């Protein structure tokens, strides 16, 4: 039991070996003046946590891709200059789509010497993982998790660069109302279709109270589980209600299924307006089911389409034969944001990185947020934008400042 097994150091760590190592470091540290430290330029280890197996594997893959691309780019540009050009080293952890596995990976990253963690994707994983990281004051950057609970806990180590649930729904409703007004108010009736988990139910509840205030009539709210294998009944119900607008909030598989079933049954509302839609701004959906995807509008995380860096990233991802989605841009931006913080902290010391993140006014990311400004860990400028699938492309249609194309609304 006491002999460390070759090949996995943290499993075989004994108390004695830790003490020895600690003593050695303590003995060497005063001698190793800054010059030596600078000469060594040890790699800066950052943890990338994504669910690459299990139900969320598709999203996790995209997130990892974004983080990887940012790391490669930073390293190619000379690494962290304040640390003598130290390279970023990715410690990847598979969250296996469960909070326990996420926690376990945080523990491993902590043991392997990560100075910060980026990722999580789903809210439950982010909640558990950031809490585990908080025990070690390990900075944790939430990539996607929109649950408002994540930021409501007041954890000093947790930062969210993207928008939370409250912000997304407010913007989604404002933009919908405005878009409808601009088109001469063609949409009056709505059917909500939502998955019955954290995100779908929460959103549906909010929309049910908010939509009537803005002049829309909610005809019905239809819940379905995730995963759902059949949407025929949902589609039939929509057909009989004949709403102007369908607002779905569900994950990739269910969204695709719903859109395809509606297409097969020739149900054509004036608009399909997804809020944080699972597939509505995913390149794979557009590629695989172009007809079903036509004119679907989404209010979601999306990169700034005027940002050349963003366009280059999108091209690079597509050249690799992979589909592009917001996970890529969010993880890419988060890693860049973290690298900037480490650069300004001039150290891999966790407290200094947290301090640097709090003071961050980083504009080198590719999201339409402006320079970052963190208040209690939440980036105040974060906002979703509206995209629409037009032809074989996903175009930004709203707000006007970022629009690449005019909204095709009403679609019929």
């Amino acid at each position, binding site marked *: 039991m006491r002999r460390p097994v070759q090949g996995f150091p943290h*499993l075989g*760590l*004994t108390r004695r070996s830790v003490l020895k190592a600690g003593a050695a470091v303590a003995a060497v540290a005063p001698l190793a003046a800054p010059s030596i430290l600078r000469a060594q330029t040890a790699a800066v280890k950052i943890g990338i946590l994504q669910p690459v197996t299990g139900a969320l594997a598709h999203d996790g893959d995209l997130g990892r891709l974004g983080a990887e691309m940012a790391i490669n780019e930073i390293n190619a540009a000379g690494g962290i200059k304040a640390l003598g050009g130290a390279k970023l080293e990715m410690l990847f952890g598979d969250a296996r789509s469960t909070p*326990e596995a996420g926690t376990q990976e945080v523990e491993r990253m902590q043991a392997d010497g990560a100075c910060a963690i980026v990722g999580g994707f789903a809210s*439950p994983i982010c909640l*558990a993982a950031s809490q585990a990281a908080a025990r070690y004051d390990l900075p944790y950057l939430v990539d996607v998790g929109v649950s408002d609970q994540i930021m409501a*806990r007041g954890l000093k180590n947790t930062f969210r660069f993207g928008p939370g649930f409250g912000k997304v729904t407010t913007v989604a409703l404002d933009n919908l109302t405005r878009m409808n007004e601009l088109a001469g108010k063609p949409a009056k009736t709505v059917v909500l279709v939502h998955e*019955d988990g954290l995100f779908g139910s929460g959103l549906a509840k909010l929309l049910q109270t908010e939509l009537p205030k803005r002049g829309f009539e909610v005809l019905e709210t239809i819940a379905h589980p995730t995963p759902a294998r059949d949407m025929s009944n949902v589609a039939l119900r929509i057909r009989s209600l004949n709403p102007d607008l369908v607002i779905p909030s569900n994950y990739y598989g269910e969204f695709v299924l719903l859109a395809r079933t509606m297409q097969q049954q020739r149900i054509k509302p004036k608009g399909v307006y997804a809020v944080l839609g699972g597939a509505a701004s995913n390149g794979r959906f557009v590629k695989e089911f172009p007809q079903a995807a036509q004119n679907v509008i989404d209010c979601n995380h999306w990169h700034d389409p005027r940002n050349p860096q963003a366009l280059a990233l999108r091209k690079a991802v597509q050249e690799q034969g992979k589909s592009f989605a917001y996970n890529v841009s969010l993880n890419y931006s988060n890693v860049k944001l973290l690298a900037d913080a480490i650069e300004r902290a001039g150290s891999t010391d966790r407290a200094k990185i947290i301090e640097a993140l709090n003071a961050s006014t980083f504009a080198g990311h590719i999201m339409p947020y402006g320079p970052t400004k963190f208040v209690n860990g939440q980036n105040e400028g974060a906002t979703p934008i509206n995209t629409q699938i037009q032809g074989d492309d996903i175009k930004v249609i709203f707000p006007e400042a970022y629009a690449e194309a005019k909204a095709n609304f009403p679609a019929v």
Partner: protein
Amino acid sequence: MTVRDLIPVLVLVGLAALLPLVVTASPVLNFLVFMLIVALGAQGWNILGGFGGQFSFGHAAFFGTGAYATAILQLRWGVNAWAGLAAAVAAGGAVGWAIGFLSFRSGLRGSYFALVTLAFAEVFRILANAAPLTGGAAGLLIGLDVRPANLQFADRAVFYWLVLGFVAAVLVLTRWIQRSRFGAQLVAVRENEDAAKALGVDSLRVKLRAIALSGAVTALAGGLYAQYFLYIDANIAYGGWISVELLLAPIIGGVGTVFGPVVGALTLHGLGEVAKQFAGRIPGIDLIVFGTVLVLAVAFARGGILGLLERLRDRGVGMLPPSAKSRTAKEVPNAGR
């Protein structure tokens, strides 16, 4: 039950308790805590499924009840976490009794009982996903407040010892069941319920006691899960994953044996975790190992790993005095299954 009966339990638990003194790495401790929580829940399943022969596919119903009871009492009514955990055990026992009363009284056995438990767990999941009391789909988040009085510890080792203590207590309990009149009646019901009834065993009462006990132990595991990870939602607490975990561990380790659930949980999760370390960072390698162990155990180790060891021992030590052999057979009533 004599002190001698408890020696293997004491030795193993004693060794396990020394582990945090040697292995100080948090990932290992964190993994061990999760594994022990699964083992504890699986021990609960084993009381009903292993000794009583009533295979439940829905032990999530108890696990989730324990987890939600612990969380809700703290969050909604400010009850102390330790008291919440005690209440979770009681709630698990009560839910177990209620489900047992409804299904056993109607004479549901075998696959019908399994399906009913599955349905109960699913109903609980849907209710928890919708009700405001359980936080609906948003789940419940227990605030991070690291104080021993709050059942949250700064040192992972303390939580490890705590869970280990509970596992040890249930090992003793299982050992007692094995040796007691109640255990004999339970095994009789498992082997042939009609024959047991003919001999005067009140089979409904025996099964109800077993399911209440089983529910209480599994609920304890749920409460500890909530207190350790501090976040639960309907899919975590009442999800199908935990029902499967809790029945796989004893099946792999040895159904109806004292150590089976612990051995099974350790083997399934331990090998997966070790594979993850050796196989570089290939995502999903642990799941492949998990599946392989499962297939191998089902194909070659009837009666689980302990059953296999038992058979190997019997074959290897044919020269043992007959008394020793009969004793082993009695100890592992399920070895031949």
